[in-house]
């Protein structure tokens, strides 16, 4: 029996692994073909011949030589693709012609800040959203449930970039409680780690608050609907028939079962959190990947846009894959869908 189960699990993992590989392949193809399929070659955007480059990014001869070598200009397409993959495997994501630095190096500088910001916000949003969702499902149909539902949906009506701007305007500029810009104060560079740590957290506060508020509604709605589904199951009715306390039914019986689909959905929507990250980092001048994307967009630095897209996608995929691994061991019912 256990043997069969184990086989089912490994088939599941193989299938999922295949899905991840094909996704990665598609992302690579997108990144490879986009600059090559667009009208003109990648360089016409930089030399000012193209309509969109009224942005006057000039390409000096050194950068152009590096780029021509990187793209393999002049080689047949299949050779270019091999070169592209070879470069990627060596961690070479191309050369940023505006920033005058390798893309991989730029991303490596920015990535830790983004991870810090996004992971903190997602965890906070999940805790708040799931707690509120359980509570709402528990008190379903009452004024409290309605109130929660309306508040969370109204919250989602405020665009993330407007919400962030308001918080920055009122709490930083008007009230002066939080810093105006960046992730740390330069003048505190020589102080003790305790002072520096406090400084970093102080800079993180508003970006995390904004991203948490942006992400919380989705988690709330998911949990609420998963809980409402679970509450109709027979074992809940049985638990109620046994005379268990309502709180015990909610947290011991319903929540663990409702949580699995919720966690999967949260993982699936990690890609959406990348959007919030771009807005939040742009507003607060937070030096992460999102800010890098926005800067690259403003000067049309395509190497950076492609590199950040690739890394963001791979990170989302990797976290999904890790979660899949956990999932198989958490839930014995997992099979190939």
């Amino acid at each position: 029996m256990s043997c069969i189960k184990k086989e089912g699990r490994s088939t599941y993992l193989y299938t999922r692994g295949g899905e991840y590989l094909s996704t990665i392949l598609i992302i690579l193809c997108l990144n490879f073909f986009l600059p090559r399929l667009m009208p003109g070659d990648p360089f016409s955007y930089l030399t000012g011949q193209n309509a969109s480059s009224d942005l006057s990014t000039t390409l000096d001869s050194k950068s152009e030589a590096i780029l021509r070598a990187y793209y393999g200009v002049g080689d047949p397409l299949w050779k270019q693709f091999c070169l592209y993959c070879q470069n990627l495997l060596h961690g070479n994501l191309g050369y940023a012609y505006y920033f005058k630095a390798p893309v991989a190096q730029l991303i490596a500088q920015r990535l830790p800040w983004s991870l810090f910001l996004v992971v903190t916000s997602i965890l906070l949003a999940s805790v708040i959203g799931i707690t509120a969702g359980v509570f709402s499902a528990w008190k379903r149909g009452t004024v409290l449930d309605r109130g929660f539902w309306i508040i969370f949906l109204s919250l989602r009506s405020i665009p993330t970039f407007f919400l962030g701007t308001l918080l920055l305007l009122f709490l930083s500029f008007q009230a002066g409680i939080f810093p105006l810009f960046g992730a740390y104060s330069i003048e505190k560079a020589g102080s003790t780690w305790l002072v520096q740590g406090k400084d970093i957290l102080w800079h993180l506060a508003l970006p995390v608050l904004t991203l948490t508020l942006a992400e919380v509604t989705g988690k709330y709605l998911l949990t609420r609907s998963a809980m409402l589904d679970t509450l109709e199951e027979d074992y809940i009715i049985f638990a109620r028939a046994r005379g268990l306390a309502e709180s015990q039914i909610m947290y011991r019986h319903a929540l663990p079962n409702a949580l699995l689909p919720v966690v999967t959905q949260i993982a699936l929507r990690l890609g959406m959190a990348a959007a919030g990250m771009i807005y939040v980092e742009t507003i607060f001048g937070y030096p992460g990947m999102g800010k890098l994307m926005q800067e690259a967009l403003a000067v049309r630095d395509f190497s950076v846009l492609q590199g950040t897209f690739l890394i963001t996608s791979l990170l989302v995929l990797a976290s999904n894959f890790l979660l899949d691994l956990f999932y198989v061991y958490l839930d014995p019912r997992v099979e190939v869908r």
Partner: protein
Amino acid sequence: MSRLGLIGGTILLFFCLLAFFAPFLTPYSPNNFSGQPLEIPSTRHLLGTDGSGQDIFSQLIYGTRVSLLIGLTVSLFSTLFGGVVGLLSGFYGKWIDRLLMRFLDIFLTIPHLPLMLLLAAYFPPALVTTIFVLILFSWPLEAKLVRSQVLSLKKREYLEAARLAGAKDYYLMYRYLIPELTPLIVSQLVLRSSWAVLAESGLAFLGLGDPSIKSWGMILKQAISYEAIYFTPNWQWWLLPPGICITLLIFAFTFLGYALEEKFNPTLKEGV
């Protein structure tokens, strides 16, 4: 619940009227340099002027047109295209369906906004670019919704009966499936419009938009690009109004969409 839907509908109607009567309500054309830069509100300029001396009130009213146009176009096209693909895929199944499902899985895991930025950056900043990118990124979700609905409808007995009586595929779809799908499609049109308005203003905010087309997102972006905006009182009439307008419109779409969903589909749980 229906009261909230009513409020949403009223707000939406109000914005539609604003958009329709824009030329009569505004004293200037939104791109006219009708005053000095950064004027404070006066009877000549109800919401002052922006950094280049254009009337903010006129921009705001005309911005309603841009937002509603984008909401309508994107939701119509993506629902139409996604609906047809979803219907065919759910109805015929087999390899078309498997292919679509694989595509959807991949599509859903890829982070959308970074790819949108990458894609849109290749095209000249124009309204058409924004609309094209938004349709490209929204039809798969419509296809997924319609497909799953078709799958559950397909099992109904009256459909089987009609088929046994000799009904052709297109007749089954046209006579039975499409009418059954209409409620879903209507509420989806409203919710998709809300998404499109939000996404457009976001793209404009990040710098992907035609600066001469003053959508609400573009006004907001231009206000923030003016460096002293937070230090001068101008934010009150330059930065707040477009943000509040976007929020109100999204609010209206959201609650109207959920109200429609609930009304047409009583078996559906609220808020799902």
